[in-house]
C-alpha cells in the first residue's frame, strides 16, 4: 500500500490541545485507515491515539506532517482538509 503525505498548520491559538486531538482520533477511527502525524523530521505517531497526539505538544503556528496509508488521493485530501479544519481551533 502506498502512503500519501501532506502538511497542515496549527492555527489554533491554544496549540494542539485535547479537543482537536479527540476530533482527529474520531475521524481517523471512522476512516478505518492508518494515519500518522508528527513534526517534520521527528518521530511520527499514530493518529488514533489522543495521548500520543497531545504529547506532540504542537504549538500555534507550527507545521505538522500527515501520512495516510491509502492510494485514493481524494480520500486522503478529504482527511487532510478536515484535520486542518480541526487545527484552526
Amino acid at each position, binding site marked *: 500500500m502506498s502512503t500519501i503525505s501532506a502538511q497542515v498548520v496549527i492555527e489554533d491559538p491554544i496549540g494542539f490541545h485535547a479537543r482537536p486531538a479527540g476530533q482527529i482520533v474520531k475521524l481517523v477511527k471512522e476512516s478505518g485507515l492508518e494515519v500518522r502525524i508528527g513534526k517534520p523530521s521527528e518521530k511520527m505517531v*499514530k493518529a488514533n491515539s489522543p495521548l500520543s497526539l*497531545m*504529547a506532540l505538544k504542537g504549538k500555534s503556528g507550527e507545521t505538522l506532517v500527515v501520512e495516510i496509508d491509502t492510494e485514493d488521493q481524494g480520500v486522503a485530501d478529504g482527511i487532510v482538509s478536515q484535520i486542518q479544519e480541526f487545527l484552526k481551533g
Partner: protein
Amino acid sequence: MSSNHKVLSGLGVGLEAVAAEVFRVAPAKPLPIPANHTGDKEAEMRKVRSAVDAVSSQLQELGAKSEETTREIFEALEMILQDEALFEQAVEQIDQGFEAGTAFVNAVETFAELLAGDETFEERIADIRDLGRRVAGHVHGISLGLDLPNTGSYVLVGEDFSPADTAQFTDAVVGVVTIAGGPTSHTAIICRSRSIPAVVSCQGAKDLLSGQLVLVDPVGDRVVVGADLSSATRALSFVSKSQEPLVSVRANIGSLEDAVTAATSAAKGVGLFRTELLYLSSKQKPSLQQQIDSYTEILAACPEGPIVVRTIDAGSDKPVPFLNMPHEENPALGVRGFRLIKEHRDFITEQLKAIESARAKTGRDVWVMAPMIASYQEAVEFAELARSLGEYKVGIMIETPGIISAIKHLGGKLDFVSVGTNDLSQYLFAADRMHSQLGALMNHWQPGLISALADIANLSAMAGIHSGVCGESASDPAFSIVLAGLGFNSVSASPSQVGQVRSALMSVDKDQAMLVSKAALEGLSAEQSKSLALEKLASFEG
C-alpha cells in the same frame, strides 16, 4: 425540641427541609502499594482490558445522565482511556513484571510526564491520573465511585462533592450535607438547581454515621440528629403590606432563555445581563452584526423595565477562545473584566457599539456597566468610553474593596453602581470563592460584608448615584430587606427567586427595613447577624 437532639450548624441551601437516614460517603480508600504479578502476563493484560472497559462504561453511564458540557468531558475521558497507546504502555509495564493495576498507573504516569510542563494540559493530566486510579481501583476491587443506592431516601453526607460525584446523585438522594464547601460550591449550586435540601460547611457532620436519622434544615442553617420534620425551621412568611416592593426587584439573566423566563416572573427589568455566554462558546469573534442581532433579540425579550448589561467578564480561568488569555497563577487577581481594555480595546468598543445599536433598535432603557473596576481612573475611563459610543446609562460593578472609597468622587461621572457580592466577599476576605474550606467566609451575612455594603449605599446616596445589588445575596429574601434598609435602590435576583424577594420587600416599610439592617450590623458573626435580623423581622409580626 428535646435536649437529646444534637444540632450541627452549617449553611443552608434551599427552603424545604427533609428528614431521612444518613448515607455516609467514606473518603476514597488508598490503592494498594505497587506490586509485581505472579508470572501470568496474559492474565494481567486481560485484567487491564476488563478494568478499562468497566471504567469506560461507568463514564458512559455518567455521561448519559449529564447535561451537554459535562457529557463532552466524559466522552473525551473515555476516548483517552481507550487509547491503544496507553494499553501498549501498560503491556510494557506488565512485561517488566508489574501487576495490572500498578502497570496501568505507571503507563498513565508515562504520558503524564510527557505532557507535563505545558499549561494547556494541566487539567488533562489531573483527569488522566484520576482515570489511572479508577482503573487500578477496579483491578483491586476498590470502588472509587460513590455507589449510591437507587431506591429509598437518604441524606448524603461527605467532605464535599465534585462534578463527577454530583452527576451520580440518584433519586434516592433526598438531602445533602457537606463538611466542607460553601454557598457557592459546586455541591450548593447543583442542590439549588435540583431542589435538593442541603446544608454545606457543616463541620459537625464529620461524626455522622450511616443509618442515623437526621433532619436537614436549610432554613435553620442546621442539621438536627434524630429530629423529624416537625422540628424544621419554618421559612419566614411575609405578609404583604403594600402593592409594590420597597425597592425595585430585577432579574439576573445570561441568555435568551433566561430573558424569556425572567419576563414571566414579576421582575421589573434586568439587574444583571451577563454577556459572557455570547462569547465563551464561539471560536471566532462574532461579527458586529451578529452581536447586534443577539443583543437585539435578548433585549426585546427582557421583562419591562431597565436592563443592566455587563460588558465582558472573562479572565484566564474562563477564557474567551478568540482573545489571547495567557495562563495566570492567580486568575481571580489577574487580567480580567475591564482590565482586558489594555489588550482588547477594540473588542470592548465593538461590544458597546453592538449594545448601543440594539438599544436604539428596541427602544429599551439600557444601562451598561463594566466589571472588575478597582480605581477611580478605571471608572472614569469606562464612563468616557461608553458615553462616547452610546446613549445608555453608564455605571460600574462594585467588586473590589479598593473602589468603594472612590464612589464619593464619581457623582456626575456615573449614573449607577451595582454590587457583585460574591466577588466582593472573595476580595474582602481574601478567600477563593470556590475553596471548599473557606465557604463560611462566603456567607453573605458576614458582618464585614454587611458593613462594606452599608458604606457603598451611603457613599452612592451622597454622590447622587443609583445603587443596586446583583450578587447571590440579593436572592435571599430576608437579606434583600437588609439591603433595602441600608439604602440600596434596587436588587436583582435569579428569576426563580424574584417572587420570594418581592414578597419580602412588600412586607415591610422603609423604617422597618432600616431597623432590620441596623440589627444585622450589630452581629459579630454571620450567624449572629442573621439571627438578629430575623428576630427584628419577627418582632414586626406581633
